[in-house]
């Protein structure tokens, strides 16, 4: 089976990046960034998630396009649930 085998170095590197991201998130939480605190926290979380998906879950090296399509589909429909629900909540107080 022609499966890509990642090196230990790569895995450890990603691990360190994830730990760094965690530290950064905690640090940033204590800095007053106004409305950007949430955005920063979620952005760091998303970068961490992307690293896990691409490298730990081998999606970067997947020869199947389906895997990527499946992930995008899940995110898209989750986004629909959140966005269209907020379309209601966000506009309830409009006159």
């Amino acid at each position: 089976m022609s499966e890509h085998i990642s090196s230990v170095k790569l895995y450890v590197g990603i691990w360190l990046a994830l730990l760094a991201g965690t530290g950064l998130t905690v640090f940033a939480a204590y800095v007053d960034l106004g409305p950007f605190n949430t955005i920063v926290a979620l952005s760091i979380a998303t970068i961490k998630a992307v690293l896990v998906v691409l490298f730990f879950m081998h999606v970067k090296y997947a020869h199947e396009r389906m895997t990527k399509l499946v992930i995008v589909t899940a995110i898209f429909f989750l986004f629909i649930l959140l966005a269209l629900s907020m379309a209601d909540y966000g506009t309830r107080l409009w006159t």
Partner: protein
Amino acid sequence: MATAVVETGERETYLNKEYGIKSWLLTVDHKRIALLYLMSITFFFFIGGFFALLIRLELLTPAGDLVEADTYNKLFTMHGMVMIFFFLIPAVPAVLGNFLIPIMIGAKDLAFPRINLLSWYLYIIGGILMVYTILAGGVDTGWTFYPPLSTEFLKTNVVTAALAVFVSGFSSILTGLNFIVTIHRMRAPGMTWNRLPLFVWAHYATSIIQVLGTPVVAIAVVLVALERLFHLGIFNPTLGGDPLLFQHLFWFYSHPAVYIMIVPGMGIVSEIVCCFSRKRIFGYKAMALALVGIAVVGFLVWAHHMFVAGISLYAALIFSLLSYFVAVPSAIKVFNWTATMYKGSITYQTPMLYAFGFIGLFTIGGLTGLFLAALGVDVHVTDTYFVVAHFHYIMVGGMVMAYLAGMHFWWPKISGRMYPEGWGRLAALLVFVGFNLTFFPQFILGYMGMPRRYWDYSKAPEFQILNVFSTAGATILAVGYLLPMIYFLWSMRYGKPAPDNPWNAAGLEWTIPSPPSTFNFDEQPVVTWEAYNYDEIKQEVPVAH
């Protein structure tokens, strides 16, 4: 090729390969699992139907004189829950889909046969929980479980009902997952996406909906159960919660769920219309894309069930507009079926009669959906019998007819026997007449203002005559549904043995014996022809048997 035989000297089929209850309860053969499902969903169909008959009996008279008000609430709740979760959602995919999809794509089984069996057991566990709920006194929240009624104010078996829905939902998810992987990975050589029967495309679209939508209703009912058990306030306005949040989560699934229910039926109709018109489907690509389009756009419209619940007007406008869009792919399908029949060589066997019924009644149901999508109209007819008629036209006039169409069309393949055609046509006629007599008056009743879920309408006795028609229709409908049960069973013993291809239909399932052997194909087929190659199949449909 050598034909395997069993001890009695007959050809080995999936039915006679092994006998005994263990060989059925521990089977991983998709065809046997389909039959296990057939027995279970038929059981629940009659339970749901029984509740329907009680409802119709109560509504014969304006006064609430047959049952108590709370009991009536239980009747319509359990009618809805049983029919939706234990009949409509699983029926076509788990019975016909399970049986036919591997054969139609040239495979020996589904991708995950053991998970297929697990799906059935989960369905049974959910079913046992549902039966327990009923026997323990029922549940009266409406099939929609709305809080805070379901979480705060009712003493009935809400948690067990929620659990029943949760477990059966998991069954549905696993079936969908199995179908998607199967259709992607198990197709025979030459069976490209463009050659797949539309029945397979329909189940592919349905499975996408099952996988994406069911988990959301799962978490919704889990939260209701948690709220009820631990006195939380997630949906309770007096405790800071929003009841509409539940409705958003519930309908995010339950709207696409109606497409889970109808899309497999559309797949069936495509197969039957082509066979009994002796023509290729008109616009194959459009039909396939329409199925996927329904699945995708169906996820964008859920709050049209909440127009008067308290959502913002702006959200209502968005959802109303999106609801108009979702009608387009369905309409394309109706036009294409009609175009397929145009200049076709049409014969009127039972499956085709049901297919005709589907096309007409689904169209009426679908169009009335557009009425409801218009905010101005919906304000007046929401929560009236207009809505009840709308969804019964699609679910019963559409879906149940499609299911019966499919059962009749593939019965020879499944059982190896022909059903009696005369009785089949009579039953189809009774179903059609009974259905319309039951549900057409309900459109008028709703328009006149009769609310749904009311056990007593003595303040408006002018509603009675239409209710009487409706109940009369329900009785005829019941007879129409009982007849196939009886003659299918009869045919298993006394029916004429079926040839491989009694309808001279196109499709891989008609190239193997009736009933099939356990592994479906003696040799893996290599497909070199397009779907619905009726121009190459010279014979007509055999007339009498």
